């Protein structure tokens, strides 16, 4: 068995003392970040990325740490959803619907434990699917040429536009802004300077870290400043109740179905935890119709479904990132950018040429998941206490970490100013209802898209028909059209 052989390589990487420590640290920090209201996985990974880069970890270790933060935060997001009715990020919104009513009934402990168990099975199931499907997908992707890649990226952007946010047009604008960011700097093909405005710091292009930190962390601080004036959070007591075996048996099929759909939605490029949890919740609600349902009033099925699905989608979204170099979610777009900073190009060859990275990461996720379950059942009180940390203590730490992180990359204050400018820009975008994930996706994929487009047209001598040449390009083109029209067709069918 090839897979088992590679998996054993992965575990030998993941079980080195350094990496084992980093998995545990990542999961712990992630749960902590996820449990803080207002700061989700994407901000957590963004804030820690420059630190991980600057302390000079080897690439697989840095990736293991950041991925741990990612799925740890996906795990921790439920704590503030259940106890405060405040979702840490979009992926945790559905958890509030039934989690908070349970906590209000005094079943906070039961809700937290049940959601931890659902999260665990969701991620584990998705990891098994990942082990099976990722190598197959990478084998298929090896046959991809430039035209196929161009289509793949157009498909990714189309999925993103039709599924994320209320206004597809704003997602497209976001993607284009990201793609335009990617064109800044010296053009690799001809050496021409593009859009640098004569600023030497921009000759190498806009720094990925500066954009990510500016757009996510700085704009988040501005959002926090804004919202502080309005709400004050009341913590619901956890209570003594705990999960029973019959609870788990009652939701076993819910978890199974939600894991499958969460994984599949995670694999689709551009879509992430928010859609996965919404779909899983909706499905279970329909399944339970008429069968003693209390959805929205603290039904355990309504809690288990989104939790299993959003954790499954976190694992699922790693699959296209590792095998195709196309991130499945905003957070994996940041992870992809992190890999590129280490001069590693994710894609079909990663699994064969650098199995220590791809399989080390997968193996570390198995370890991390077990660690998360262990951390979350007995240690839940620790994280609950952290919820009461005041924002007046938290915000200075966030601001400090972003500044140190960005400064330590080049030791240049230009980056700090640029980061603030981008933060204001991102704040305006968020206030106008734009989502930031498309911008990051555009930034990460911009260079690859342009390079492949130019390569394809070089091969054909400028003939655009090369983009529709071969079975795979047709399949991807049809998939793109389907992604574009499916939501409309579904809408008319419903009527």
């Amino acid at each position, binding site marked *: 068995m090839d897979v088992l052989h590679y998996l054993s390589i992965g575990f030998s990487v993941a079980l080195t003392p350094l990496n084992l420590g980093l998995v545990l640290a990542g999961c712990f920090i992630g749960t902590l970040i996820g449990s803080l209201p207002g700061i989700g996985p994407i901000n957590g990974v963004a804030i820690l990325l420059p630190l991980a880069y600057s302390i000079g970890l080897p690439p697989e270790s840095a990736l293991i740490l950041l991925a741990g933060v990612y799925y740890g935060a996906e795990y921790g997001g439920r704590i503030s959803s259940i106890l405060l009715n405040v979702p840490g990020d979009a992926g945790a919104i559905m958890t509030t619907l039934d989690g908070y009513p349970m906590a209000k009934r005094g079943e906070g402990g039961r809700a937290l434990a049940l959601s931890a168990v659902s999260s665990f099975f969701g991620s584990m199931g998705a990891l098994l699917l990942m082990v099976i499907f990722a190598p197959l997908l990478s084998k298929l992707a090896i046959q991809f040429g430039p035209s196929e890649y161009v289509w793949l990226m157009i498909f990714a952007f189309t999925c993103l536009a039709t599924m994320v946010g209320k206004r597809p047009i704003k997602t497209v604008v976001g993607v284009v802004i990201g793609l335009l960011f990617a064109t800044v700097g010296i053009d690799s*093909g001809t*050496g021409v300077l593009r*859009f640098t405005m004569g600023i030497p710091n921009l000759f190498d292009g806009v720094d990925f870290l500066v954009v990510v930190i500016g757009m996510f962390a700085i704009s988040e601080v*501005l959002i926090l400043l804004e919202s502080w*004036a309005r709400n004050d959070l009341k913590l619901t007591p956890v209570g003594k109740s705990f999960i029973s075996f019959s609870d788990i048996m009652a939701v076993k099929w819910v978890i199974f179905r939600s894991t499958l759909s969460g994984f599949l939605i995670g694999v689709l490029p551009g879509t992430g935890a928010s859609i996965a949890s919404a779909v899983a919740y909706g499905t279970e609600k329909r399944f339970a119709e008429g069968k003693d349902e209390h959805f929205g009033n603290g039904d355990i099925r309504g809690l288990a479904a989104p939790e299993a699905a959003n954790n499954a989608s976190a694992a699922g979204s790693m699959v296209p990132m590792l095998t195709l170099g196309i991130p499945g979610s905003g957070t994996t777009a940041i992870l992809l950018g992190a890999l590129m900073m280490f001069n590693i190009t994710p894609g079909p060859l990663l699994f064969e040429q650098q199995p220590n990275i791809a399989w080390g990461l997968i193996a570390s996720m198995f370890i991390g998941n077990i660690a998360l379950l262990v951390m979350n059942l007995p240690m839940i009180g620790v994280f609950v206490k952290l919820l009461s940390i005041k924002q*007046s203590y938290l915000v200075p730490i966030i601001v400090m970490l972003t500044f140190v992180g960005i400064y330590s990359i080049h030791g240049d204050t230009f980056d700090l100013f640029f980061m603030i400018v981008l933060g204001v820009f991102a704040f305006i975008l968020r*206030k106008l209802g734009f989502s930031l994930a498309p911008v990051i996706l555009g930034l990460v994929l911009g260079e690859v898209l342009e390079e492949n487009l130019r390569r394809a047209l070089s091969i054909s*001598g*400028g003939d655009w028909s090369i983009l529709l040449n071969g079975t795979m390009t047709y399949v991807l083109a049809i998939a793109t059209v389907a992604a574009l029209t499916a939501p409309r067709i579904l809408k008319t069918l419903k009527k």
Partner: protein
Amino acid sequence: MLYDRIFAGVSLVLSGLIAWTAYHFDVPFQYEPLGPKAFPIILSIILAACCVWMMVKPDQNVWRPNKEVFTKIAIGLVIMVLYAVLFEEAGFIISTTIVGAIFSWLFGEKPLKAFLYALVLSLVSYFLLADLMELNVPTGLLLGDF
């Protein structure tokens, strides 16, 4: 409605500028048919089309900041710019203490407590970041690193 239209208008002008700049890139040699101009021009056309669409069909405004919110955001921004100015010159410890104290105060802490918190935070983090993690943290005035 208004915000969306303003944004779309500004972006429309910007997309025109991008296309114009890209069109005038001075390309000394070129081996491939597409070159460095085409991609930005294609993008600016897409952006322009989206902006026109947004102008025709803008969203409702949901954001209505009051004066207090606006002041807080403005102070927060000024503080961050100040942090960027001071970071290298005054060094990490001094600038973090000042900025951390103001942020802590902005989020509702009493002035003295905010200052003490920021002082402890900056000292502890300095040793964590500079000594333990060996990051490039500017010492500035305090330790005379010029």
